[in-house]
């Protein structure tokens, strides 16, 4: 039957095309709920998580299974959502009065808005009980505090570092730069050889602003910067250090220190630039440490080739030059939950030292609980990161989590224009100021 044969042929062809696009690989679905195994009558606790990828998902599943075994009176249901889908999904769930009892949050303005809308519980009283609040690392807590309350608990802490190819540096007699000027000198050495010194991916728009955020903290000062980000203050980005920081980043682009086509480079290709030794340096968050240390994405043994250095200082700047840049993520309790006590029992269990240590072992990421990172649970680089964090006088958050959403979008768009040379640093700042002023006027109307 020719028709049947052609049907098979069409199916095979479609299958090949789909396989070629990598759709054949099993992916975590957008939203999945784990089946319940609890006894009838148990209190249901819905837990909204974005840990859809391995090893996070299986580690969380093990912890959840242990919790269910210890607390048969609580029916814990984990609901997974892809991180990219999460923001609209949780807002829709909250609007529909159907949010999970405990759900994932990014701190900063995103969480503050939930607090302003009375959508999450103030956990200040709970954190004071039994020293629960004291067990978190100090640098993780401030972003969850707002208007005298604490609106969530931290889970994983992410900070930015420069990663560099040690072999490429040693071959040229270079040492990791400590200041911005030293960084420029290192870049020039590689550039003279015709190599882009720093890999950059900016298709998602946010990576470039990490450079600007750290320069603003170094030049303008951490308190002033936080004040200016906030739409509830009189901050207006008037310090001349703002445009200076933008010009310094523009200089990196103008001199060709960033890899080509950064506005179209995805995160995967960005890691490949570093892993295939096309660029000697990248600036990235600690979420990439595990992938670049040991995964299918990088050649075998590549994990031993690279090291990391702290974000460079800007001597003479008004900020504390020892600050790190980053932010924790965390969890909040829905204000309209009908299972508050059970939800808090789960959250306390999840953030206990015992479970935190198990999470660090499984994930090789920094869990914001004191004592979670130690020689038994963490590798060298993670331990060094934990020590840096403990020694740091503070952590400045990246701007995109602190800016009001419409301000963030306008600012990040303008920055991607600055990268390709179509928008000047002055115009980026003007765009930011304009969007910020509009958002501040709206915030005042709200209150």
């Amino acid at each position, binding site marked *: 039957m*020719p028709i049947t044969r*052609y049907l098979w*042929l*069409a199916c095979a*062809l*479609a299958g090949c*095309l*789909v396989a*070629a*696009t*990598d*759709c054949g690989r099993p992916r975590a679905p957008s939203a999945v709920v784990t089946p319940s195994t609890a006894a009838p009558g148990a209190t249901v606790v819905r837990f909204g998580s974005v840990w859809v990828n391995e090893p996070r998902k299986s580690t969380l599943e093990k912890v959840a299974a242990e919790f269910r075994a210890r607390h048969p009176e609580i029916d814990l249901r984990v609901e997974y959502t892809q991180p990219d889908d999460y*923001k*609209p999904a949780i*807002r*829709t769930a*909250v*609007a529909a009065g159907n949010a999970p009892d405990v759900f994932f949050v990014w701190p900063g303005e995103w969480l503050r*808005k*939930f607090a*302003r*809308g*009375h*959508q999450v519980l103030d956990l200040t009283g709970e954190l004071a009980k039994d020293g629960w609040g004291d067990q978190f690392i100090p640098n993780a807590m401030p972003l969850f505090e707002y208007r005298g309350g604490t609106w969530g608990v931290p889970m994983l802490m992410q900070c930015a570092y420069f990663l560099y190819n040690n072999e490429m540096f040693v071959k040229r007699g270079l040492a990791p730069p400590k200041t911005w000027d030293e960084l420029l000198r290192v870049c020039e050495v590689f550039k003279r050889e015709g190599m882009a010194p720093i890999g950059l991916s*900016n*298709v*998602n*728009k946010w990576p470039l602003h990490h450079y600007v955020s750290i320069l603003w903290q170094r030049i303008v000062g951490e308190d002033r910067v936080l004040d200016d980000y906030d739409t509830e203050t009189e901050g207006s980005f008037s310090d001349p250090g703002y445009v200076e920081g933008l010009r310094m980043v523009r200089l990196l682009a103008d001199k060709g220190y960033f*890899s*080509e*086509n*950064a*506005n*179209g*480079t*995805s995160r995967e*290709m960005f890691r*490949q*630039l570093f892993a295939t030794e*096309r660029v000697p340096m990248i600036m990235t968050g600690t979420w990439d440490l595990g992938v670049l240390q040991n995964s299918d994405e990088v050649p075998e043994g590549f994990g031993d080739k690279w090291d990391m250095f702290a974000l460079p200082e800007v001597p003479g700047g008004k900020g504390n030059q020892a600050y790190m840049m980053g932010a924790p993520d965390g969890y909040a309790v829905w204000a309209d939950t009908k299972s508050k006590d059970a939800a808090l029992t789960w959250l306390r269990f999840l953030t206990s030292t015992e479970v935190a240590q198990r999470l660090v072992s499984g994930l090789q990421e920094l869990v914001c609980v004191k004592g979670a990172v130690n020689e038994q649970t963490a590798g060298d680089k993670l331990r060094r990161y934990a020590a840096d964090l403990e020694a740091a006088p503070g952590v400045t958050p990246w701007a995109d989590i602190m800016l009001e*959403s*419409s301000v963030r*979008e306008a600012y990040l*768009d*303008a920055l*991607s*224009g600055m*990268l*390709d040379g*179509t*928008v000047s640093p002055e115009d980026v700042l003007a765009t930011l100021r304009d969007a910020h002023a509009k958002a501040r006027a709206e915030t005042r109307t*709200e209150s």
Partner: protein
Amino acid sequence: MVPYAFVAPALFVFCAFALIPIALGLCAAAFRIDPVLRVCEYVGARNFATIASDPPFHIALRNNLLWILLSIGVQIPLALLLAAALIDQSRFCRALRTVFFSPLVIPGVAIGIMFSIVLDGQFGALNAALSWVEGHQVTVGWTADRRWALFCLIAVACWQYTGYHMMVLLAGMQGIPTELYEAAEIDGAGWWQRLGGITLPLLRRVMLADVLLVAIGSVKVFDIVQVMTQGGPNNATEVLATYMYSQAFMSERMGSGAAVAVVMLIITLGFAVIHSRLARLEAGAP
């Protein structure tokens, strides 16, 4: 009542999934809505004024217009030529028709990912091929360079949909009596003469409908742009649908997002009206 009973199920589905959401969207455009802050405030036409004064909206409108023109200019002639060339019922032609149609069955997101890899400036297959031809390293940022980005996206859309329009035109061609072609052949008409003298005039109404489909599809384009460039760099590839998404979900301005949706609805309805007028003129209606 019996006729109403017959149409009731279809009417219910239409109301539930089209008419009511459209009505709600129209209402939402007149409100400032923030579900997290529990805000729902009537603002009249302010959302429309906001988007009208926003430069990315103008870029999105211009890009959509360019998308429509280029899609019609590329997809319809290509689809027509393919349909005319592959109308034969031989195995080879039928196999090729399947090949050209197959991109349509791939989800837009998958196509976006696939072409992001092909067009990547550093590791992409296109630059690798060009490097081989040129004899030196080519690193054009096809989706990073604002001069190329939009055209690359339109080209990807043309790759995906030309096969579909080929099928639409092919169906129209199969309705043309074969005697006309036989007579023309006897009179010594060549392939191009038959195409220009018989196929095109008799296919006019189908082509009109197809042009409308291309135009409406071009107004709604979202997935390829969102996956490949997210409207960047600096809004260079912004289209109305990505701008709507950005307003509603990234900037958390649901009302402004709804206002963009209303603009898209008006444009789409405009095309439908134009089509209906032209179709009536074609049929000789007063």
